[in-house]
C-alpha cells in the first residue's frame, strides 16, 4: 500500500497543469477555434488529445495514476467536456472489433472532432432491458446492404449528430442477446426522423429517432452479423465508470460550499447552519470513499484485471453524489429555488440550479438504472442468483 505519488507522477502533474495554464482560452477568443487549437497542441504533446486511447492507436499510453491525475486536473481547470460518443464509446469498439479499413475510415475524423456521433441503443421497449431491442435490419438478397426500420429513444444529441452507431436486430429466433448487429450510418439522410424529448429541467438533449427503410452498406457493419451484443456489452461497463464523474464532483462540492457561504444567515452564512453543514459533510465523506473505490478499480485495471462489476459501484455512488450536489444547490437557493426562466432572481447561483437538479434525476436511470446496477452486483459479486442456495 502506497498512496504517495512518485516523482515521475508529480512531474507529470506539473506538466499537465502547465499545459492547461498555457492553453487557456483568451478573452475574446472564439470558442471553437480555441478548442480545436487546444486539441492540436494536445496531440503534439504525444496523444493528449485522446487520453484514453492506447499507444497503439496514437494515445499517450498512460498509467492509471496518470489518468487519475489527468481527470483531476481537467476538472480543476474546468476544461470543457469532450463528447464521449465517438471518442470514448465507438472508438474502443472499432479498436477491438472493427476491420483495419473501418479503423482507418472512422478514427481520424473522431480524433479530429470532425464528426459528431450518437449512440443508437435504447428503444421504447428496451431501456434497462437493452437486449430487448427491436429495430430491424434486413440484409438485401445480394448481400450488399441492410434495410433498417424501427425507433431509438433517449438518443443523446441525435439532433446534431452526423453519424450513429446503432444496435439492430437481424435475427429474433434465438435468445434476445443473439441476433443483434452493430451498424454505422450517417444521420443526415432520407428515412431518418429526429424528434426532441424535453426533459424536466426544460432542456433538449435527448431525442427519439425513427428509421424508415434506411439503407446501410454491409461494409458499415462492425464484426459479424448477430454478434453486436458482445461488442456493445464491454463498452457499457466503460460507460458506467465514465458516468461516475468523480473529479467533476470534487470541484462542484467546493463550488457548492462557496455558494452556501454567499447566503447570509443571521450573523453567519448557510455553511454555519448545522443541518446544512452536516449534509454537505456527509456528501464529502461519500465522495472521499468513492474516490478511493475508483482508485482501487484503476489499480486493478493496471494490474491487468478486467474492469468488472466495480464499475457498477462507481456508477451507483457517483451518480448519487452528483444528485446530492444538485439537491443541496436547490436547498441553498431557499425561497428562490422555484424561480424559472431567463431572468436571474435571488442568488446568482440559484439560476439553473433547480433545472440541474431535475435533469440530474436522469443520472440514476441512464446507462443502466441503479436497480439494474444493484442486480449486477448481487449476481456477479455476491453470487446471488436463483438456485444459489447452499
Amino acid at each position, binding site marked *: 500500500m502506497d498512496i504517495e505519488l512518485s516523482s515521475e507522477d508529480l512531474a507529470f502533474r506539473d506538466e499537465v497543469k502547465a499545459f492547461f495554464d498555457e492553453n487557456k482560452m483568451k478573452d475574446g477568443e472564439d470558442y471553437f477555434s480555441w478548442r480545436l487549437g487546444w486539441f492540436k497542441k494536445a496531440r503534439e504533446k504525444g496523444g493528449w488529445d485522446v487520453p484514453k486511447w492506447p499507444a497503439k492507436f496514437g494515445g499517450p499510453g498512460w498509467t492509471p495514476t496518470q489518468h487519475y491525475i489527468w481527470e483531476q486536473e481537467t476538472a480543476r481547470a474546468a476544461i470543457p467536456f469532450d463528447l464521449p460518443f465517438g471518442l470514448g464509446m465507438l472508438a474502443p469498439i472499432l479498436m477491438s472489433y472493427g476491420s483495419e479499413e473501418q479503423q482507418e475510415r472512422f478514427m481520424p475524423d473522431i480524433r479530429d472532432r470532425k464528426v459528431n456521433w450518437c449512440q443508437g441503443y435504447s428503444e421504447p421497449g428496451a431501456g434497462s432491458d437493452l437486449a*430487448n431491442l427491436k429495430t430491424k435490419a434486413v440484409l438485401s438478397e445480394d448481400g450488399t446492404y441492410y434495410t433498417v426500420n424501427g425507433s431509438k429513444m433517449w438518443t443523446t444529441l441525435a439532433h446534431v449528430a452526423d453519424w450513429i452507431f446503432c444496435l439492430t436486430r437481424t435475427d429474433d429466433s434465438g435468445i434476445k442477446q443473439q441476433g443483434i448487429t452493430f451498424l454505422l450510418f450517417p444521420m443526415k439522410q432520407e428515412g431518418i426522423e429526429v424528434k426532441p424529448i424535453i426533459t424536466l429541467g426544460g432542456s433538449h438533449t435527448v431525442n427519439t429517432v425513427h428509421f424508415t427503410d434506411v439503407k446501410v452498406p454491409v461494409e458499415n457493419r462492425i464484426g459479424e452479423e448477430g454478434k453486436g451484443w458482445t461488442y456493445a456489452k464491454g463498452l457499457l461497463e466503460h460507460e458506467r465508470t465514465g458516468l461516475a464523474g468523480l473529479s467533476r464532483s470534487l470541484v462542484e462540492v467546493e463550488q457548492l460550499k462557496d455558494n452556501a457561504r454567499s447566503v*447570509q444567515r443571521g450573523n453567519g452564512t448557510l455553511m454555519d447552519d448545522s443541518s446544512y453543514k452536516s449534509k454537505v459533510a456527509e456528501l464529502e465523506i461519500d465522495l472521499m470513499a468513492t474516490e478511493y473505490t475508483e482508485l482501487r478499480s484503476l489499480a486493478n485495471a493496471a494490474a491487468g484485471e478486467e474492469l468488472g462489476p466495480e464499475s457498477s459501484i462507481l456508477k451507483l455512488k457517483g451518480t448519487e453524489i452528483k444528485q446530492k450536489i444538485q439537491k443541496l444547490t436547490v*436547498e441553498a437557493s*431557499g*425561497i428562490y429555488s422555484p424561480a*424559472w426562466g431567463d431572468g436571474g432572481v435571488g442568488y446568482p447561483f440559484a439560476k439553473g440550479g*433547480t433545472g440541474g437538479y*431535475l435533469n440530474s434525476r436522469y443520472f440514476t436511470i441512464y446507462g443502466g438504472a441503479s436497480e439494474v446496477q444493484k442486480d449486477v452486483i448481487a449476481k456477479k459479486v455476491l453470487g446471488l442468483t436463483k438456485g444459489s442456495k447452499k
Partner: protein
Amino acid sequence: MNFELSEEQKMIQQSVERFVQENYDLPKRVKLSSQDPGYSKDYWNSMAELGWLGLPFTEEVGGFGGNQIDTLVIMEQFGKGLVLEPFLANIVLGGGAIQMGGSEELKNEMLSSLIEGSKQITLAYAEQQSRFDLEDVATSARKEGEKYIINGQKSMVLNAESADHLVVVTRTNGGQVDEEGITLFLVDSDSKGLERNNFPTVDGLRASEITFDNVEVNSERMIGDPDKGFSILRTITNNAILALCAEAVGAMEVLYKDTVEYTQQREQFDQPLSDFQVLQHRMVDMFMEYEQCKSLLFRATMETIQDPSMAQRTIHALKHLIGKSGIFVGENAVQLHGGMGVTEELRVGHFFKRLLVIDSQFGNADFHLDKFTKF
C-alpha cells in the same frame, strides 16, 4: 375521535374532484400555464360561482363560515390536478389577512369582491435576507401624517402579476428580526413607486420580485394594529402551510398510484416491472409516506381548529415531513418511471416539480425540523 367528513364537506370534495377530473388533464394544464395570466379566468369564475372562494370567510362578509378542514378538502383535490388558479394566494393568504385583521370598512370593501372573483389580493412577506424567517422584515413603513411611506423589496410573491392589491408586511418599529414592530398594509399594486418583476416558477405557476420606492399608503389601509402584525402573519402562513400540505398529499396520492399503474404495464426482462420485489417495496415505502403525511396533516389541521396556539409544534412537524416525504415520493415516482419520468410528457414529473416547490415555500424541511427541536 372522528375522521369522517361532514355531508357538506363530502359534497364539496366530490364537486372539486369532478371539476379537476373534467378540466385538468396535463395538456390542458400546460396550455393554461404557458398563456397569460397563467391560469383560467373562466375556471376562477366557476370556482366563485360554486362558492369555493367564499368557503373560509364569515357569513357577515358573504362567506360560508368554513374552517381549515374545508380548505383541506379543496386543496387536496386541487393537488390531484395541480390546479393553477390562485386559491392559496387570494383566499388563504390575502383574504385571510383581511378577514383576520382588516377594519370593517376594509372587509366590506374587499372580501365580497374577492369571494365573487372580481378582485385579487396576495401576500408579500419574504425578503432576500429573510430566507424562511417570518419575523425578518427589513422593508420599512414610515409614518407621515395620515400616510405611511413604504420602502424595500419583497421576494417570490405568489400570483402578484394578477393581484389588484398586495398585503405588504413592513417594519414600523424595532429591530430587523423582532416579532414586535411588524405592520401589515393593503397596497394597490398599481401604486406609484411599486414595481413588479414577474416570472414563471418551475411548477408552472407565477411569482414576482417587487420593489417599493416611496410607495404611499393611507393609514386606513393598515391591517390589524400598528406593530402587531406578526400574529396575523403567523396565523395566515400557518393556514397556508396546512393548505399547501393538503395539496401535497393530493399530489403524492397521484404519484404513488401512477407509479403502481405504470410498473404493472411496463415490461422489461420479460415481466412487468411490478413483479420485481425491490420495486414493490419501494412503492410500499411511497404509499406509507403518503399515508403518514395524511395522518399528520389531519392532526395538525384538527389541532389548529381546536387551539391554534397549541398547534405550532405540530405544524412544524407537518411541514418537515411533507417536504421530506414529498421529495422522496416524487424522486421515486420519476425513478420507477425510468426515462419517461424525466420528460415533460408524463404527468409524474410535473407533480414532482410541484412537491419540490412546496418544500421551498413557508420554510423547507430543514427549517421546520430546526424549529421543531427548539420547542
